[in-house]
């Protein structure tokens, strides 16, 4: 296995792929779907929002390890964030993942495991898919978004 592959498929990513957290349905609440037609990757993000705080987040769907791990890490990470903070986080993640390999990037904490995709540009769309769905759900747009 090459160094690149280990950066992409970090233990954290493999673990979340194997055992995705918050992989379940939710009745009511806000939701939106990310669907990449060419890949077939599909992830529905559900949020329970009280006031302007995300109290619960979960997802369903199917996709590659990167999509699943990204969605799983995301649902863990956004709980108890305000809508504004979550929106800012999506923007920060987008920006960080678009930094070319080798250049310095923000420390995303637990989400850093997702930054390995920078070495595999065609997989960036996988990492971002759940986050774009999140953004649509945050804006209460129950729609289908794509990152292809």
């Amino acid at each position, binding site marked *: 296995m090459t160094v690149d592959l280990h950066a992409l*498929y970090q233990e954290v990513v493999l673990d979340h792929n194997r055992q995705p957290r918050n992989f379940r349905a939710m009745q009511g609440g806000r939701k939106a779907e990310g669907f990449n037609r060419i890949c077939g990757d599909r992830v529905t993000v559900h949020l329970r929002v009280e006031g302007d705080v995300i109290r619960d987040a979960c997802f369903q769907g199917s996709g590659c390890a990167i999509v699943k791990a990204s969605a799983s890490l995301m649902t863990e990470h956004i709980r108890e964030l305000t809508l504004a903070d979550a929106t800012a986080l999506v923007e920060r993640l987008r920006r960080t993942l678009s930094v070319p390999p080798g250049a310095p990037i923000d420390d995303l904490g637990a989400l850093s495991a997702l930054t390995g995709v920078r070495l595999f540009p065609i997989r960036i769309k996988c990492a971002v898919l759940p986050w774009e769905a999140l953004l649509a759900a945050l804006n209460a747009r129950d729609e289908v978004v794509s990152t292809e």
Partner: protein
Amino acid sequence: MYLDNAATTHKPRVVIDRVARYYTEENASVHRGVHSLGERATDAYEGARERVARFLNAAETREVIFVRGATEAVNLVASTYGRTHVGPDDEIVVSEMEHHSNLVPWQILCDEKGARLRIIPITDAGELRMESYEQLLNDRTRIVAVAHVSNALGTVNPVAEVVRRAHARGIPVLVDGAQAVARMPVDVQELGCDFYAFSGHKLFGPTGIGVLYGRERLLDKMPPYQGGGGMITSVAFERTEYSALPLKFEAGTPHVAGALGLAAAIEYVTDLGLDRVRAHESALLDYGTGALSGVPGLRFTGTAANKAGILAFLLDGVHPHDIGTILDRAGVAIRVGHHCCQPLMARLRVPATARASLALYNTRDEIDTLAAALFEVREMFA
């Protein structure tokens, strides 16, 4: 190492040289003008057509139409034969394993005409259900369109039998031969089909060139496909006379270099012998089936009794795209995804599969490397 030959094949030196020689020594438009360079180009182009006709064992050279590829060949038939023979409530029969290129042109036609697509179901092994096929044929069936070899499963369909049953009811048959021509000898008269489509680039030839074989009797009665130069004998504002076959279907300056490259590719595979190619691929397929069966959690999609050199598979708990990325870093190029067969993926209830597709230049060593890389994937995702 390259195991994505169902997507496109690599080009032997003789093909590249032939294309280059046309541009350096023979470059001219064909069927136009009187200069000798144009004459040489025309002779070479028509010689390529003869080479294709012999390759397919077509009864007449004029039954060979040069097109951009298998996709255009199917579109040509759908929009000429289809347009004039299919009406409201008529039916077109395709199979569940068709590539989008042998499905979408028929859907477009059906939408336009108010006709219906009827689908031949497949078994879990990936074979056509012939008894269901028989039941689909009726007085409203206007054409049957099936793949010779499935790009996603490797199944070699019993096309001669498909044709026999359709012809018993007077229904013409189009065969999509895109995956067949590089893998086995094809004789259109023996198959009995009315149309046969293939692409040059999957047969070690250039991209942008392909062939539609059509039975003369049908081609003659079909309206032109595209209008333009080359496909006419006389044009006046009141009335235009069309060329005879095959030029009636070749409007515009054709892809001469492509046709010559394709003829060179055909020469290349026939020199090797397509029976030998088939034997090599078949031995490699058996070897690969054995080698990959040893990978824990691997399941083949497509286990037909009669199969060409295509190994499509799923790995428990590992998405095909992850397999593709890891194999790529191990230097192994395979295809992952829906293989332009979304209805088939729906039938298999999977979003995608991984596919290693073989060609005459692949070796057992390469299969070993593939299997070893799959063991590594397994280990990583364990």
